[in-house]
């Protein structure tokens, strides 16, 4: 009886989160008639699926590395402003929106920018004679996802990494100066090692974020299954992909496994980070 008050939330999470996860994973292990099979799991070794995961990893890797680097640079710049300043509040709000709620809308932003009729495309073509689509329209292919993804990756890095940069104590730089250190030694011997785990943590989080993103890609690429989330869409809509049923469950399982590994690495790095943020 003592735990009765927790029942509504527990029941809700069970029905809407735990059951769906179990169902998603379980469909990966069932055939068309509901019998148990490992057949779908072997599909993860299918060359088509392997190359889709490869595309997803490449896209996530590129946007994570570039996004984390640019994001860290912005954090460094922001650390020069007072914590409560107007610019920081504005940057915070903008980053929050772009990092977490952009989705489909970011796809349209880039269609208006570097789409076939986008202003940047037109200016480059008509004023500078540079046709960015000379080798075909890549915006609606996997390479076209890189810029829109960076548009939410950089802000996510800012949100994630800024607390660590703000956590660098003035006393540390004073101690460094008192002991005869230069600005270079401050960065290589003190700030660098302290920030390294949170930078890597941010990198992992950005990778996971790009890997699991669906909306932006779905809005830009309406046909095809070049990355894993789009392949799940294909499997859900058409039931049979590569002549296999229940492939959506297998792909979901593959994604969840990758995400568990990534988030495990992230929380290990976050624990290392927290030591310096007290």
């Amino acid at each position, binding site marked *: 009886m003592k735990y009765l008050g927790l029942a509504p939330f527990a029941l809700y999470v069970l029905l809407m989160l735990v059951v769906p996860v179990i169902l998603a994973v379980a469909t990966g292990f069932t055939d068309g008639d509901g019998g148990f099979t490992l057949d779908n799991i072997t599909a993860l070794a299918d060359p088509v699926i392997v190359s889709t995961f490869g595309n997803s990893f490449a896209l996530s890797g590129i946007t994570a590395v570039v996004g984390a680097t640019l994001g860290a640079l912005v954090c*460094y710049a922001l650390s020069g402003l007072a914590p409560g300043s107007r610019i920081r509040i504005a940057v915070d709000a903008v980053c929050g929106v772009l990092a977490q709620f952009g989705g*489909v809308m970011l796809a349209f932003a880039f269609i208006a920018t570097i789409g076939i009729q986008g202003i940047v495309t037109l200016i480059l073509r008509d004023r500078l004679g540079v046709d960015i689509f000379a080798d075909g329209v890549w915006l609606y292919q996997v390479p076209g996802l890189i810029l829109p993804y960076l548009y939410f990756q950089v802000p996510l890095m800012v949100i994630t990494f800024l607390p660590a940069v703000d956590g*660098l104590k003035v006393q540390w730089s004073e101690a460094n100066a008192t002991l005869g250190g230069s600005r270079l030694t401050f960065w290589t011997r003190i700030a660098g090692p302290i920030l390294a785990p949170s930078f890597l943590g941010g990198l992992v989080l950005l990778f996971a974020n790009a890997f699991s993103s669906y909306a932006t890609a779905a809005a830009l690429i309406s046909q095809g299954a070049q990355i894993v989330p789009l392949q799940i869409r294909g499997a859900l809509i058409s039931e049979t992909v590569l002549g296999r049923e229940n492939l959506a469950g297998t792909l979901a399982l593959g994604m969840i496994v990758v995400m568990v590994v990534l988030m495990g690495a992230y929380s290990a790095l976050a624990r290392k980070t927290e030591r310096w943020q007290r």
Partner: protein
Amino acid sequence: MAALTAPRIGGKPSRWTTTTILGIVGVIFAIPLVSMAEFTLRSTGGGYGFEHWLALIDPENERRYRMLWAGIRNSLLLAPSTVALMLVLLVPTMILVQLRFPRLRRLLELICLLPITVPAIALVVGLAPVYSVISGVFGSSAWTLAFAYGILVLPFAYRAVQSNLQAIDLVTLTEAARTLGASWPTVIIRVIVPALRTGLLAASVISIAVVLGEYTLASLLNRQNLQTALVQVSKSDPYTAVILSLLSLLFAFALLAVIGRVGAGRPQNRTTS
């Protein structure tokens, strides 16, 4: 003046460095938003005008945009439904765990952050069968999506409320109120809720932003919301899609700037431990 400033010994960037970096990145990040604005102002015959903005509110086009308005209505209904679900299910549980079951705190955190590890696109595979049951019970109206959205907003709402909970001593406040003879409902309404107001506000605002931007679940569960309608309408009328995207983004900026001002604990970093 320069002679009076102390030599820079620490890791802080100079004014000049800050301005340069923020200036360059700011301009690059403004390009897509400016391009959206420019795109919506193009007139059919060339030149610029408010043609596409006016078309949106022209009563003659009502039929053409019927689906779009339906999607917006659904999203505007889903936002408060999701917030209500979050406030009714998550918040009392968090308060209860804080007061009575401190040992369950880690478990609750783990559960609330789980949706980060299970991407919406993977979750939807298992939600499809769950929703065929839900449709059987509640019908297939759009508001039923709120059940799933309540899960999506968990990590955001949890962090916002938790950072507020950590900042106040809920146990002492409650005990004080009880000692002074307050009943439990009085404690909740006059002590706990006011003490948590910034956290609750932040959690609600972030939940609204999540719901208004949600596309994955709605589109794959075959329900209409703002985002699915935008994708649909963009196929025949890209201008309208861009206008509404721009407005939604600006609306979300405004919402988040408001919580930034209130100074509530927004999810500053996605710490899972």
